[in-house]
């Protein structure tokens, strides 16, 4: 059946970081705004709202996508992961830990978009070269770091992740 919805509101249920959230929103509500202002998960930032800067990148079924170029209503069947879902201050994920170790951030505004992007990248490429690391972050803008330490953080994150995986291997 065709579901028709107008600019009055619609009920949207999204699975974000493993939790289902239901809100009444307009169909034009961008996923980025839904996350930030309806769910108040403000870790996802907005830098350009036209898909170029990558600051708003979240994982949709594990793949990095621009949350400013999706409507919340279109994301209903997906599993969304934001930076908040990748670790906490007391229990940081490998990418977050690597950013801290490598000084991969300055103002921190673009960082969540890098963290989500790199998380997906090292999942697919657990042992990247420097060139691959640089390529992997080449769709995200950072105005502070010059990227060098972010490249370093990609390699370090992969290393931490591998160590973690090996650590679990008792044999």
């Amino acid at each position, binding site marked *: 059946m065709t579901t028709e919805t107008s600019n009055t509101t619609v009920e949207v249920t999204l699975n974000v970081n493993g939790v289902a959230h239901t809100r009444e929103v307009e169909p034009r509500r961008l996923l980025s705004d839904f996350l930030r202002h309806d769910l108040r998960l403000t870790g996802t930032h907005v830098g350009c709202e036209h898909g170029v800067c990558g600051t708003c990148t979240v994982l949709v079924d594990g793949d990095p996508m621009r949350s400013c170029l999706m409507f919340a209503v279109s994301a209903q069947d997906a599993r969304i992961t934001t930076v908040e879902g990748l670790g906490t201050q007391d229990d940081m994920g490998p990418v977050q830990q690597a950013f801290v170790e490598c000084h991969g951030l300055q103002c921190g505004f673009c960082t969540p978009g890098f963290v989500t992007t790199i998380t997906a990248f090292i999942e697919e490429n657990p042992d990247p070269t420097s060139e691959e690391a640089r390529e992997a972050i080449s*769709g995200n803008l950072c105005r502070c770091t010059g990227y060098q330490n972010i490249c370093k953080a990609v390699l370090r994150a992969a290393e931490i992740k591998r160590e973690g995986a090996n650590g679990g291997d008792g044999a």
Partner: protein
Amino acid sequence: MKPAPFVHHSPHTLDEAVETLREVGHDGKVLAGGQSLIPVLNMRLAQPAHLVDINRVAGLDTITVTDHFVRVGATVRHAALQRHDDAYAVLPVLRQALNNVAHPAIRNRGTTVGSIAHADAAGEMPSIAVLTNAVMEVIGPKGRREVAAGDFFEGPLQTVLEADELLEAVRFARFGPSTRTAFLESARRHGDYALAGVGVAVDVEGEGSDAVVRGARAAYVSVTDIPVVIDLTEVVAGQRISSSWDGVDELVQAGIAPEADIHASSDYRRVLAAELTRRALTGAVS
């Protein structure tokens, strides 16, 4: 930068999609990946009253590889096609071109068919459609019809698609076994729209350093209003693969009409397109 209000339609079947488009297509837009459309909506440069979101339509997200073609459904993401090893094995130019489409996060959402329907001559995939003599599978209230890629594009951002029609799938035709391909483009930044780009398909006879070119075709990005193919056969036929491709420059430059913009002049793009062609020819055969 927030989009204007619209009515959101979310059909679950192709029939529903067609019916919805029949009702609202004249004042609506199809939303597939949205990676070109949503920026325009956010900037309010377009304010369609209706969006027909086809992402939930069953059966549109498949890639089919046959002896003759690679068929790509309307909601297949660029990334899915790029990663598809069977498609790559039979038609490597798809991946060669897709590697140049924007950035991974855009490719994860944007659709190949959508980018063809969008008909931006700065897009890579419209030019691959014409290079491969692709067939467009169009569906609308009057039923299905097929359009050759060469007849599909009418102008910048314009195609033969009617407002109530949907591009259901694109069949990229496979080349013969002796055809080798390459795709090259030059952009100001990696992942940007190209200043110029080219995909080439070169028909080669023989192996190794003895190989001889029988013919070649090239399709362009960002240097024409609509995607065009230039047949280079007259100047490359009989050349060895170590050729310096004399004569290609003139043929290419005569066949394109690049526009100037803030990033590059028309003359520069013309020279760039010709040089990229020569390099792509070398890349394809070596």
